[in-house]
């Protein structure tokens, strides 16, 4: 009985493969354990402190680019969140801009206009074949050569462009502004309901309604109407040149603009190729058939081509989003205060907790990436063919 059991383990293909897999996992676990233990022992022997107690200690440095208040008296943990938010800000803005630019260029690449098509071609080949770090440094260097603060370019009243960033008026919300926001949200909800209703009506009667026009008007004019109704509860604080810098107003720093341009222009080149391949993947017959039905070319694109192309576009698009997010760690090259620069750089230096901090930063990037993948997978499922296609 016993020998039978052992014999079964070694000679049965299924249990043997299970055994080998268990063995590999076991060895890997032992390896990780030894690595961790060895590291801890070495740190201790060299008299290097370790642990996460530093998170509650004062950071002692200032961060200029921040979304939440931060002073040098705040903790390293808060510095972590400042950095995390800056990373998320560049990742979200970058993905947004790269997607728009990428779709635009991807469609132009298939244009019948020789000049447009080839301009897009040169753009794609140039940007995706030059390392993104160099592009970021290039854009940042150009931004640094904008006029100095005293010779700021006046774009409009209250908007100034200098090599210290783009200064603009800061909106100040007064009492009653929240009602405008609520009305805006309600208008958006209403527009969805109207769209659904009119679509249904169209299916019944065949009559087409200018849904987009109606809804745009609704979403735009409702808040404007409410704004005047509430007695214009919005003021702007203009930036004023005082001493060394502009005081008041808002500013977008050149470090952020440089990162945004570098990342989105680079990633857009890849996205445009993805979009192009997606559109090409839709068989020619689909277009011809819809032309035969008498659809206009923008409707063919919107109703026939794009929905089918999305099936092909979404999975590689997800990995481009992930790339952009991870590439945002290059902010360190031009002093953009992202997670790696602030927490992973300055805090690391002040506290010397290299292993702890790097682990935290890596786990954070992993989490962000997994969240992006999760939502993109949901979206991917939504655009796939339903039924037995």
């Amino acid at each position: 009985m016993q020998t039978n059991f052992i014999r079964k383990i070694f000679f049965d293909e299924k249990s043997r493969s299970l055994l080998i897999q268990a063995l590999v996992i076991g060895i890997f676990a032992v390896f990780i354990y030894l690595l961790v233990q060895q590291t801890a022992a070495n740190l201790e022997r060299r008299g290097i402190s370790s642990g996460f107690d530093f998170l509650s200690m004062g950071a002692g440095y200032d961060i200029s680019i921040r979304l939440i208040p931060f002073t040098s008296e705040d903790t390293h943990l808060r510095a972590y969140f400042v950095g995390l938010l800056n990373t998320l800000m560049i990742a979200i803005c970058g993905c947004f801009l790269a997607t728009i630019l990428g779709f635009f260029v991807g469609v132009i690449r298939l244009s019948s206009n020789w000049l447009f098509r080839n301009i897009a071609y040169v753009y794609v080949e140039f940007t995706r074949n030059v390392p993104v770090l160099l592009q970021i440094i290039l854009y940042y260097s150009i931004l640094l050569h904008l006029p100095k603060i005293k010779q700021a370019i006046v774009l409009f009243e209250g908007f100034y462009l200098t090599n210290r960033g783009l200064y603009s008026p800061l909106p100040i919300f007064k009492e009653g502004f929240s009602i405008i926001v609520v009305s805006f949200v309600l208008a958006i909800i209403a527009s969805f309901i109207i769209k659904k209703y009119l679509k249904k009506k169209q299916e019944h009667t065949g009559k087409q309604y200018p849904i987009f026009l109606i809804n745009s008007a609704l979403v735009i004019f409702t808040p404007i109407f409410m704004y005047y109704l509430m007695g214009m509860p919005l003021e702007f604080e203009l930036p004023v040149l005082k001493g060394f810098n502009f005081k008041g107003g808002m500013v977008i720093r050149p470090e952020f603009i440089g990162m945004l341009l570098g990342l989105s222009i680079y990633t857009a080149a890849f996205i445009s190729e993805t979009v192009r391949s997606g559109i090409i993947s839709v068989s020619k017959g689909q277009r011809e058939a819809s032309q035969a039905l008498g659809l206009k070319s923008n409707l063919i694109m919107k109703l026939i081509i794009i929905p089918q192309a999305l099936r092909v576009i979404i999975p590689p698009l997800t990995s481009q989003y992930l790339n952009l997010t991870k590439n945002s760690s290059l902010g360190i090259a031009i002093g953009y205060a992202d997670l790696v620069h602030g927490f992973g750089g300055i805090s690391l230096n002040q506290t010397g907790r290299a292993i702890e901090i790097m682990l935290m930063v890596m786990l954070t990037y992993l989490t962000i990436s997994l969240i992006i993948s999760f939502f993109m997978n949901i979206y991917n499922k939504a655009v796939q063919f339903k039924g037995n296609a």
Partner: protein
Amino acid sequence: MTKIKSLFISLVLTLGVSSAIAGSHGSTLDLVKERGKVMCGSNTGLTGFGAPNDAGVWEGIDVDICRAVAAAVFGDASKVEYVPTTTKVRFTVLQSGEVDLLARNTTWTLSRDVDLGLEFVGVNYYDGQGFMVPAALGVSSATELDGASVCIQVGTTTEMNLADYFKANGMSYESVPVETNSEADAAYIAGRCDVYTTDASGLYSSRAGYADPSAHVVLPEIISKEPLGPAVRHGDSEWADIVRWSLNAMIIGEELGITSTNVEEMKGSKNPEVLRLLGVEPGYGAYLGLDNEWAVNILSQVGNYSESFEKHIGPNTPINIQRGLNALYKDGGILYAPPFR
């Protein structure tokens, strides 16, 4: 089965060897002697302190510390390999054993000395944090800097001093963080920031490299103590002693008037401290595990502290720094080495 077995054995061996390497605990001196050269963590390039010259040879008063150690150990000051380190990686490079000592304008602080497992062996330049602004701004004091944009190297003590100084004076500022000295120069010259702050020595060094040095002024305020000195790893006092006394030998050399040119004559001196230093009266080299000529080699090949200072950063160089605090204690400075006996 044999395959798996051999795989397992090799894995065990690999683990054993790697932990043996990680755990090896030999003396740094033996390691250095075996290697035949001193690995020295230097600046990525700070003129006068540690930077390669036109011919690609490293020079500067920090570099001279490394050369002095090499002269003491090997009798040849050129047996040094320089590892350029940024402010960010410098401690890790030293902790991990990639370099034997760190000689790159690093401030001696409690947390670095204790918490990072380093040992500072002395001070080779007493510095303090200063501010540089374009002369055209018309600023004459650091207290007028409210609202300014300030370029600063990340991962330095200057970053914290800056935050403290502006807070204490009720002023605001925008920090523009940069990685290296040269990036800071570029951002400052482009006007991204109004002020460049770092150790005053670094400001003088940077200014010397600008197209028009006279267009920039270093403000009179010095807002911190920045004792810069060489550091080694904790836990090998023998090696720490060698580095410490290599530096001290240069300082004592100046005190006793021994220079690279008169070192041989001085062997005939009547001053017993000179004779002890120059190994005429034997024994002191052996204390350190070196030969008796170690200090002679330092002084003849590298020179005394004053020679090193005048050659690299003194008033006759483009960097143009006065001795000030870094003069000997008997000349009004605070440079002071323990007695050689």
